[in-house]
């Protein structure tokens, strides 16, 4: 407590008034105009030629406490502030290689060149940085306040605790409050007061934030003289507790992260497996080129994106394009080649493998052998933060949602439409279906097209998760066949369950034992599993003759 008072005094003496609260009401007109001028004058003063004058301006900005001064101060500390021939200060933006107005941020056309670089000593920086932090803590933008809190706690300046506490008192945003509390705890861990350290450890252990892990390790460790780094036994015990809490929290976070990662892998597998469940399960056609349908779908997405010059709405266009183009390829293959091979599954396997070679080579010739990358549209960028250190990318969430929609649609088509009825009739008794007037040829082609189209949709999903290359399909085909084997042929529910199981199990084993061990473990598991249930999870029952 005494330390807090002390720092407050220091802050008061150095003239750094507390910034205007973010939620302050609007100022009245006249005063606003005056302040405006003062702000501009102070900012221009930052580009003064002597350190003293700059210091003066910095302090003026502190008194004004206007967050609009943040870019200018930031630039000053970063050596990005420029003095124009008109005597005004400007901020240099290296990205666009031009200057911006320090307050409005607008690019200044017809710049008052030549520009002079404002150089400051570290002395000035020492004064300016805490004031910058303090201004940031008062910014109306929660993200800026959050960043400032983290920066302050890492910087370890003498004024930090006081600033942070002040900010915490005024803060209303729960997230920023949390960050401020942590920042204070971080500073307090270095405090000379044992009870302050214990209180800080309490906060750390509640947060489970792994940024503290190294500090905690250090506190629990021993110096080179064999004495513990932390002299107080009570604090040591608290540190131990905090460390355990952090570690177990991290474990949970890691687990949930893997789980979700597995879920998105499962979604991609499910796309491939749904298509297979349709072509293999219903038609009995084992299509080794099925993976290439994924690949074609991904390239279709890439083409649409390129054709639309990366418009943010290319995805809604890419989805039908990918579906239709891969479905068309599927129908063509079925009509020209595969229909001659019904009832000869092993030959079908070889022929479709040949087809896959041709497709890969074609794509290679058209798009090049190199991977291409499909940019996520901005509305899929970023992610959903569930807990500290656990961010779910929107792309993955979208892929999971997408596969649910597609699976539901497939189920609906097969179970609730006239077409689905015909499909089921044909797959159960081909000749009987033909007798009652169903065009089995048409059904075959459409079913194959549907299966391929679903894989094409999977390609759209894949393009959002990683790079796209001609061999993309090869890496999924084996896994997706495993899904079909495990799930039982021709069973949508089986495919869903098996894809989920394999995807999640794979990603759960991976961090512990490595990707290869994960694959091998899954294979061994499948081999053992089919010992017990050769028909897969959800077998179609029926009798086999000799």
């Amino acid at each position, binding site marked *: 407590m005494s330390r807090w008072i002390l720092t407050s005094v220091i802050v008061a003496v150095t003239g750094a008034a507390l910034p205007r609260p973010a939620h302050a009401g609007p100022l009245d007109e006249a005063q606003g105009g005056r302040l405006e001028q003062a702000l501009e004058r102070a900012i221009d003063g930052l580009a003064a030629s002597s350190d003293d004058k700059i210091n003066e301006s910095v302090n003026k900005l502190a008194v004004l406490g206007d967050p609009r001064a943040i870019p200018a101060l930031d630039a000053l500390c970063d050596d990005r502030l420029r003095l124009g021939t008109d005597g005004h200060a400007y901020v240099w933006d290296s990205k666009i290689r031009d200057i911006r107005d320090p307050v409005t941020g607008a690019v200044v056309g017809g710049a008052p060149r030549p520009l002079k670089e404002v150089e400051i000593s570290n002395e000035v920086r020492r004064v300016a940085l805490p004031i910058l932090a303090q201004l940031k803590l008062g910014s109306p933008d929660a993200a800026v306040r959050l960043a400032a809190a983290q920066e302050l706690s890492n910087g370890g300046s003498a004024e930090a605790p006081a600033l942070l506490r002040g900010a915490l008192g005024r803060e209303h945003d729960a997230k920023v409050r949390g960050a401020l509390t942590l920042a204070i705890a971080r500073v307090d861990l270095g405090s000379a007061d044992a009870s302050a350290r214990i209180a800080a450890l309490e906060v750390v252990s509640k947060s489970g934030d792994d940024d503290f892990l190294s500090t905690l390790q250090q506190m629990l460790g021993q110096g080179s003289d064999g004495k513990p780094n932390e002299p107080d036994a009570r604090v040591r015990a608290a540190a131990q507790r905090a460390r355990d809490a952090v570690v177990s929290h991290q474990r949970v976070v890691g687990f949930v992260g893997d789980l979700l990662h597995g879920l998105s892998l499962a979604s991609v597998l499910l796309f491939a497996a749904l298509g297979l469940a349709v072509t293999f399960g219903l038609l009995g056609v084992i299509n080794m080129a099925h993976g290439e349908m994924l690949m074609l779908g991904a390239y279709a997405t890439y083409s649409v994106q390129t054709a639309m010059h990366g418009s943010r709405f290319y995805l809604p266009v890419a989805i039908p394009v990918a579906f239709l183009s891969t479905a068309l390829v599927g129908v063509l293959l079925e009509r020209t080649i595969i229909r001659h091979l019904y009832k000869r599954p092993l030959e079908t396997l070889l022929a479709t493998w040949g087809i896959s070679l041709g497709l890969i080579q074609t794509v290679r010739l058209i798009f090049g052998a190199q991977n291409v990358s499909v940019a996520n549209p901005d509305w899929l960028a970023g992610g959903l933060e569930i807990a500290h250190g656990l961010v779910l990318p929107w792309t993955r969430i979208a892929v999971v949602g997408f596969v649910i929609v597609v699976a539901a649609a497939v189920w609906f088509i097969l179970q609730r439409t006239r077409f689905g009825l015909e499909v089921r009739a044909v797959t159960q008794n081909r000749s009987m279906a033909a007798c009652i007037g169903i065009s089995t040829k048409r059904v075959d082609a459409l079913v194959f097209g549907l299966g391929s189209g679903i894989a094409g949709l999977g390609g759209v999903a894949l393009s959002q998760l990683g790079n796209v290359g001609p061999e993309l399909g090869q890496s999924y085909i084996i896994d997706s066949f495993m899904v079909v084997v495990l799930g039982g042929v021709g069973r949508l529910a089986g495919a869903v369950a098996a894809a989920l199981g394999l995807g999640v199990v794979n990603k759960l084993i991976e961090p512990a034992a490595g990707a290869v061990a994960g694959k091998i473990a899954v294979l061994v598991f499948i081999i053992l599993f089919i010992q017990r249930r050769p028909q897969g999870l959800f077998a179609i*029952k029926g*009798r086999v*003759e*000799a």
Partner: protein
Amino acid sequence: MSAIPVTPLEDDDRPTPISSAPIPAAARPELALWVENLSVTFDGFKALTEVTLTLEKGELRCLIGPNGAGKTTLMDCITGKTRPDSGAVYLESRMNDLTKLSECRIAELGIGRKFQRPTVFQGHTVYENCELALAGKKGVFRTLFARLSAAERTRIDEILELIGLQDHAKRQAGLLAHGQKQWLEIGMLLAQAPSVLLIDEPIAGMTHAETERTAELLRSLAGAHTVVVVEHDMEFVRSIARRVTVLHQGKVLAEGPMAQIQKDPRVVEVYLGV
């Protein structure tokens, strides 16, 4: 044998189930096959319910019943193709329960079977089909070095003559007509020399004359072998049957001499009357 009185079995007055322990060999020396409380379900569908059946040595038994009665399923259980949910099958005086053994072990013990749909080795010649069916040890390495002995050759020739395929010995079995495949399968069964023969619908696809010959053949087999025949053709059944068992909906509906069975009102109702 035909003088055994008929006791039509009612659901409620069936004989009390026999204890699951096999009957000692000495007590029932004349039994060839003993099926005991056999039950099979396919996903809740009861294909066989507590079927009990005893076959005496040398007997020729006909198994009849409407489609789906469970006749083929019963054969599947005896030959190890289908594992029953409960119940047991014992062969002769042996103590081993067939339902625990593999198909090939059961075949080795002396049960031969003809499928409902004729099944021969399509890629092999008629002669080779018979050779493969020949009795003998059938381990991997023994087979690798096996050569046909003179006695075996004669045996195959005899069989080919019996089934009327001597002129087709070098023909691919897959190219035979349906009825010829039926004969070939019967021939293979003979080559296998089992003590119990299970024959599922042997005369489908045969001409009238061939049916006659089949009947004759089956009658001649009885005595030395125990024969179970499943057939829908009543004419044929009448010509060979001494004792008949009627299966209906997975249960034994009646059992007895043909003449008696034909008069049984329930059998007439569910099967013969159609």
